[in-house]
């Protein structure tokens, strides 16, 4: 299944938690929010095949 992050599509295994997916992708959990099917979720959420998962980067340096 795919996760969208900064205009990129990243591949992760369905059935894992968001926390594990972030770890696999080497993304610092402190630097993103996880949006599943348009809703904000905590990182223990289990990602399923049909979910639309988006990571919103929170760091900005303007």
């Amino acid at each position, binding site marked *: 299944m795919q996760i969208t992050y900064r205009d990129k599509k990243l591949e992760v295994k369905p059935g894992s938690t968001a926390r594990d997916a972030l770890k696999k992708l080497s993304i*610092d*959990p*402190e*630097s993103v*929010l996880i*949006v599943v099917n348009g*809703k*904000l*979720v*905590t*990182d*223990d959420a289990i990602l399923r095949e049909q979910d639309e998962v988006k990571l*919103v*980067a*929170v*760091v*900005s*340096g*303007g």
Partner: protein
Amino acid sequence: MRCRKCDERAVINMRHHKLALCAEHYGEWFIAQTERAIEKYKMFSRDERILVAVSGGKDSLSLWDVLLRLGYQADGLYIGLGINDPEPYSDLSLEKTRQFVAHGEWRVANRADNDSAPLAPRPSPILHVVDIPATYGKSIPEISRAKARGQGKPCSACGLTKRYVMNRLALEKGYTVLATGHNLDDEVAVLFQNTLRWQTGYLARQAPVLPASREGLTRKVKPLCRFYERETAAYALARGIDYIYAECPHAVGNLTNFYKTLLNQLETESPGSKLAFYLEFLRARGQGVFDKYNRADELHACETCGQPTSAPGRCAFCRMWDVSAIVR
């Protein structure tokens, strides 16, 4: 994970507070915490008029939303920097800001009881827009190139211009307070930078409230300074605030972002590090540790625009923009 207050699904888990909350309770918590900070640091009172510096980003729009929901008289100031290359960053951020004013959910007042009568929507605040290219003849990247300031980055010209325009508009329109959306990560990145170099003068002046040092300057406040950047973003998302996700193209790869990334790694390993770094700094500062470094510069009136400046003659803004007469 469940909400601590109602057992609904949590939308955020704040490990440094050991607190997970659902969307509704998170919104309430965020507003209550902001109000506590406003009171704790004596930022402003109910009868003051507040000018909120808005950029269309998550922090400033969240701040404006909260102040409006709390019933403060908070108007917005958007400064058009003319940064539209390679992407229309400035145009898009103005559009998001206008949308927020026109359609933001802050309009619907909270119901205090179970009264089913429809509540009157809150009145619209004023959005002041100062377009830099239209007012001063050049965009920020153009003036920066023309003056060869800041080693190819427009940020120093940008910062100087924004500070000047905010201060000046606040004074002209009678706002006593200027509120910015700085979050804890912004503050901690600056604190880290200043500590690495032991910039004691800067450390002495870093605070949630900068009092108006004299007539001609406004008080500057940062009501979101105790929230992690993740938390202001989560507030915007939970409230459905449509903000600009894209960063200013000139922010990419800057030092602030680098420090924020480092500090987030630290936070992930040791939750609460960022919060402790900042709050312990404020405590030390409050105890006067940095007082002797806080030189109050003697201020003069700029001979062109009358704004306060540290050296006699024209202020840095008037020199950079070659202002020889007041532009209104």
